[in-house]
């Protein structure tokens, strides 16, 4: 009976969350049919069946599982159990209660195996994530007996801090946690029926009883997976990258003129390139000339990339998402405009796919639409630099000794000094400015 396992949907994916089953337990599915929505660290994706037959769900909605963990089985010999079937398939194979076969007979003491459905939340951590020491995205490091005890007592290992070598959660940690919550189940009696899954609040002992503070009442919000990734990556960036910033003011009069002409020339429904699209294109052309700005400092080496892929930071639903414009240096401005519109729409609709979120070699972040004149961005590691783009506004500047009003935009480059040095960064930024001030060059 083929097992459906948690797929690897992106390079950085370590685990995924079952968001929604698109079929019911026991339904007949066919190869290629979308059966489940899985949330990864980057996106939500539908996943297809790779075999025909009745589907038996192993992992409940909300369960977070590592890559390779069984989430369902497809096949005729679905084990027996209580049926909530719809009648159509009820005769053939009833939905199962105990999907996982018993352990080999040679295993002595560990006789009684819990049904897989019970294992899922406890063994590898339920969807909830408290403030535990093992929180967020990483595989929980725990000894087998610690996992077994957690499973038998419906304890989320993520809530615990390991006292073993390298932070491994050991039996003693689980035992003290069980004592702490006043568990009555004796750990040496594995036959005891597993308790019903505790609600998330009960499982997070610290958060439940928030003491009154001078900040008033405290409410806690769990991070979704994207927010977990953002928190981790941003902290990693600030903690590991020796960064510096360089800024320059760009005269945008010519760019404004070009955009007005493009707008006038655009056919009905044809997207007009935005100033940000011009920044993407200008950056891409400059990146082609400054390979280190397009590279990464990684494991003591410079990693230089043959493709110029510019990530464009997009504010999503309570999150920040950076879809990638691949080969931005060879795309036309119109092509970039179409691509960024489509990517932004995908982000807003939550249908963006991991391949569209990875592979970036540089990032452009624009807060100009909010009137921000300049800001510094946090490097999207392992990229070498990120460009922060401010608002275009008329400013008083001196031209040929005269004080004049010119539309000006401040751009700020944050650089990883391990690969991009001051003078190089300055020249790279100056090249971007030069391209934007002579925007016809963006046509090539």
């Amino acid at each position, binding site marked *: 009976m083929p097992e459906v396992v948690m797929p690897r949907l992106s390079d950085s994916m370590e685990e995924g969350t079952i968001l929604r089953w698109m079929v019911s337990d026991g339904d007949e599915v066919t190869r290629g049919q979308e059966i489940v929505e899985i949330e990864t660290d980057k996106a939500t994706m539908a996943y297809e069946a790779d075999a025909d037959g009745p589907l038996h769900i192993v992992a409940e909605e909300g369960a977070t599982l590592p890559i390779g963990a069984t989430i369902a089985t497809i096949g005729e010999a679905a084990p027996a159990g209580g049926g909530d079937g719809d009648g159509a398939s009820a005769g053939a194979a009833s939905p199962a209660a105990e999907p996982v076969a018993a352990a080999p007979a*040679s295993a*002595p*003491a560990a006789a009684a195996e819990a049904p897989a459905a019970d294992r899922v939340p406890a063994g590898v951590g339920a969807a909830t994530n408290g403030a535990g020491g093992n929180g967020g995205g990483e595989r929980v490091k725990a*000894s*087998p*007996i610690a*996992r077994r005890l957690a499973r038998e007592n419906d304890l989320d290992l993520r809530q615990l801090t390991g006292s073993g070598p390298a932070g491994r959660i050991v039996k*003693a940690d689980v035992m003290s946690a069980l004592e702490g919550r006043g568990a009555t189940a004796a750990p040496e009696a594995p036959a005891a029926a597993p308790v019903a899954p505790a609600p998330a609040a009960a499982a997070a002992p610290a958060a439940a009883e928030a003491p009154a503070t001078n900040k008033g009442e405290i409410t806690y919000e769990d991070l979704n997976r994207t927010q977990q990734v953002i928190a981790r990556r941003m902290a990693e960036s600030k903690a590991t990258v020796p960064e510096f910033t360089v800024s320059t003011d760009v005269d945008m009069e010519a760019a404004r003129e070009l955009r007005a002409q493009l707008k006038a020339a655009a056919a009905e429904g044809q997207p007009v390139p935005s100033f940000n699209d011009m920044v993407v294109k200008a950056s891409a052309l400059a990146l082609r000339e400054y390979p280190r700005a397009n590279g990464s400092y990684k494991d003591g080496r410079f990693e230089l990339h043959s493709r110029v892929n510019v990530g464009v930071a997009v504010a999503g639903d309570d999150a920040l998402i950076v879809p990638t414009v691949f080969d931005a240096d060879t795309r036309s401005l119109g092509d970039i405009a179409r691509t960024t519109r489509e990517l932004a729409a995908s982000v807003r609709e939550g249908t963006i796919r991991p391949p569209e979120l990875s592979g970036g070699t540089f990032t452009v972040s624009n807060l100009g639409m909010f009137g921000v004149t300049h800001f510094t961005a946090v490097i999207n590691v392992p990229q070498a630099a990120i460009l922060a783009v401010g608002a275009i506004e008329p400013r008083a500047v001196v031209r040929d000794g005269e004080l004049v009003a010119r539309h000006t935009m401040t751009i700020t480059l944050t650089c990883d000094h391990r690969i991009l040095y001051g003078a190089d960064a300055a020249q790279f930024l100056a090249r971007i400015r030069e391209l934007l001030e002579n925007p016809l060059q963006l046509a090539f």
Partner: protein
Amino acid sequence: MATTETGIETMTYREALRLALREELERDPSVFLMGEEIGVFQGSYKVTAGLYDDFGPERIMETPISEEGFVGAAVGAAMSGQRPVVEIMTINFILVAMDQVVNHAAKVRYMFGGKVGCPLVIRTPNGAGNQLTAQHSQSFEGWFAHVPGLKVVAPATPADARGLLKSAIRDDDPVLVIENLQLYKAKGEVDTSVDGAVEIGRAAIAREGSDLTMVAHTFAVTRCLHVAEKLQADHGISAEVVDLRSLRPLDMETVAASVAKTNRALCVEEGWASYGVTAEVASRISLACFDDLDAPVGRVGMAEVPMPYAKSLEDAALPHEEKILAAALEVCGA
């Protein structure tokens, strides 16, 4: 030997072996001994002392220095219904007889379709610690425990030495009895009022404990018992010591039951750990006890070098108690 009223005597490991040989020689006329200098000289380690005088040259048979020859002769005698008990002076000298042990003794029953057995016993000590250097300080029992068709027992106490040797002699298949140079002088209680045969394939709990299972055989059991006392006294760790007693067949039930209780295991042997008895036991623990383990299974053997001669280096190479203690603490995460 010191006798008490109940029939329990305190005797050395060597005396217990001698007692078993004497009892079996008396019980069964098909039992006879073969080996180098086991007669007039009374045995290099004096295990056979006195037997030549009592049983004579036909049953206490002196052999030339030719292990391949006399082990081969013993295989033939066993195939024709005798119960030879061969002494190999130390396990180091069995290498020249490997073909007889592995390709003949172990294969006879199989090659003759079960119609002919080979009730042969080979007694031989392993171990190091007497500055006998690289060629005479080895522990090869794992090599034999590797071979289907052989049984391998390895007693750690005088009572087990007597009881397992008796069972080996009565067994209808070839059995290696692994003795130990350091243990020959070790004393223990033996109940001489009973037959005392010990079933092959049964491990024993040498010391009860709740926090850590130490698995060992022969002299390593003694080392582990000392370490267990230290663990208790200095670290408050209660260690259980499982004496394997039989290496093939291996009693995993006893080992697994202990590990299920303690959740932690350390395997110790006198020889090199790589591909050794500890490798086998650790592998089986990880299979049988996966959901019971709280830490990776630890292993201690001698340093992976030919045994040096210099006393200081020999001491450094042995699986001495400091090494076992350190490994035990590591397994316990202490």
